[in-house]
């Protein structure tokens, strides 16, 4: 195949598609967490990238310090980082309720600097290795390409968690509380529900999603203090493209943009880092509220 003067082989195309789906898995989990938090707290969590990074470090610590393997990390690290998130909400974000949301944005921005700075201090800028769990090593032969098992697992795990979250929010009683409190928190409180506690837990859950993505990323990208800062701007672009209003929108946009990015790497590699931002500019021109967002 010859496109734009690049000679492209099929295996290369499949390979990039796969990488695109993997990146999309992370975009989806991260933008989903941002959307969940935004829905309840109407704040943009700039510390999201830092929590993602901390999730990966959580896995690393669990292994090095407690000897707990990947499967424990997959549960414990999001739980621990989510708890840190809940504490952050209680200690800091709660005090900013009623002020311009830009202040909470700046607060989370400051927190991101603190977390990232601390980790860079102790671990430098380079990456720490984290091995693929042995149950997920190796590769499947799909006939047209080899699929590393771990990569397939990341895609499946991300889809299951993303769609599971969507199901809980759209189809359960708990989700109904969340949606109702997003619309009118005072009224939900007037029904006897402790909305402030729900807000804290929601923030913790959004953060836990980021940490979960971080654990998934650890064996692929190494564990690096800067890993969150590198991905967060793209995730913001994903959120802007998808629109802040929709949970499903953030999931779908995440996966699709990952794939688009992967394809760009095949057909026009020079633009692969910027294609998401270009799409964002185009979407903003046509639909300022994003693809799935409600116009305000």
């Amino acid at each position, binding site marked *: 195949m010859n496109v734009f003067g690049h000679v492209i082989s099929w295996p290369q195309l499949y390979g990039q598609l796969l990488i695109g789906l993997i990146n999309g898995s992370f975009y989806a989990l991260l933008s989903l967490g941002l959307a969940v938090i935004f829905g309840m707290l109407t704040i943009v969590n700039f510390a999201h990238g830092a929590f993602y990074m901390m999730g990966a470090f959580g896995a690393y610590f669990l292994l090095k310090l407690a000897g707990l393997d990947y499967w424990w990390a997959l549960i414990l690290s999001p739980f621990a980082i989510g708890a840190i998130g809940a504490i952050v909400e209680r200690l800091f974000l709660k005090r900013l309720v009623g002020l311009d949301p830009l202040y909470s944005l700046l607060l989370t921005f400051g927190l991101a600097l603190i977390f990232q700075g601390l980790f860079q201090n102790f671990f430098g800028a380079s990456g720490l290795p984290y091995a693929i769990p042995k149950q997920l090593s190796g590769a499947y032969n799909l006939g047209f390409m080899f699929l590393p098992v771990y990569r397939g697992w990341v895609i499946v795990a991300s889809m299951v968690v993303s769609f599971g979250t969507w199901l809980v929010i759209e189809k359960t*009683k708990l989700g109904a509380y969340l*949606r109702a409190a997003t619309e*009118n928190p*005072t*009224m939900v*409180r*007037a*029904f*006897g529900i402790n909305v402030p506690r729900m807000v804290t837990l929601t923030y913790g859950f959004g953060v836990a999603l980021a940490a979960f993505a971080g654990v998934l990323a650890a064996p692929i990208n190494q564990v690096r203090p800067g890993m969150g800062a590198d991905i967060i701007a793209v995730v913001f672009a994903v959120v802007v493209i998808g629109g802040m209003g929709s949970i499903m929108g953030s999931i779908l946009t995440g996966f699709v943009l990952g794939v688009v990015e992967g394809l760009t790497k095949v057909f026009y590699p020079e633009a692969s880092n910027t294609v998401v931002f270009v799409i964002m500019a185009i979407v903003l021109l046509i639909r300022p509220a994003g693809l799935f967002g409600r116009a305000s």
Partner: protein
Amino acid sequence: MPEAAFAQTPAAVLKLKGLQAWYNESHILHGVDLDVREGELVTLLGRNGAGKTTTLKSIMGIVGKRSGSITFHDRELIHLSIDRIARLGVALCPEERAIFASLSVKENLFLPPEIAKTGAMTADRIFTLFPNLRERLSSGGGKLSGGEQQMLAIARILRTGARFLMLDEPTEGLAPVIIQQIGRTIAELKREGFTILLVEQNFRFAATIADRFFVMGHGRIIDAFANSELPGKMDMLHEALGV
């Protein structure tokens, strides 16, 4: 004091003493005294801006700052948070109805958690009271007509076991035939033993169901009387309410 006129009778469920309330910097309630007794239907009358809605919201805990005393079954509410107050059995059906548009009718109806084991209405009983709701269970909350929204807003707080209901202008903006239906429903609720504090502009509607009236003006109670005294109060009401 108005309460002297009704000294003997069942115990007060709710008692306000010198209730003051503020929204941001503006002082809305300047010392409200009123009481609602077990099984009674009390109506708050008054012009727009007299403080009726603020009184209900203060009881629920939804105003920025309050002082004075609000006792509910002899328990002081003034320092409790909204959700704690709700869990004691106080339920509010707000003026704007507050149906959640992103939830289905069914989700709206079953959203408020049960706060008491006894006294809650069963879903079947609710559907007998509001037959329209059963047909619309799967519709989106935002798709209901005004009358349907009002019925859902009332139905929603009957399921929880709360026995003290505050209804804020349930007839506002509704067609006469719907108003009649709401009136019948409220009368039915009173028969079932609910204690109700109703805010109304439409005192002709209130006259058909209320036991007693409190009239508000400028953040205070300016008069209180029983339904039987209503005919003698008409001139005063016309003046106070501007109707």
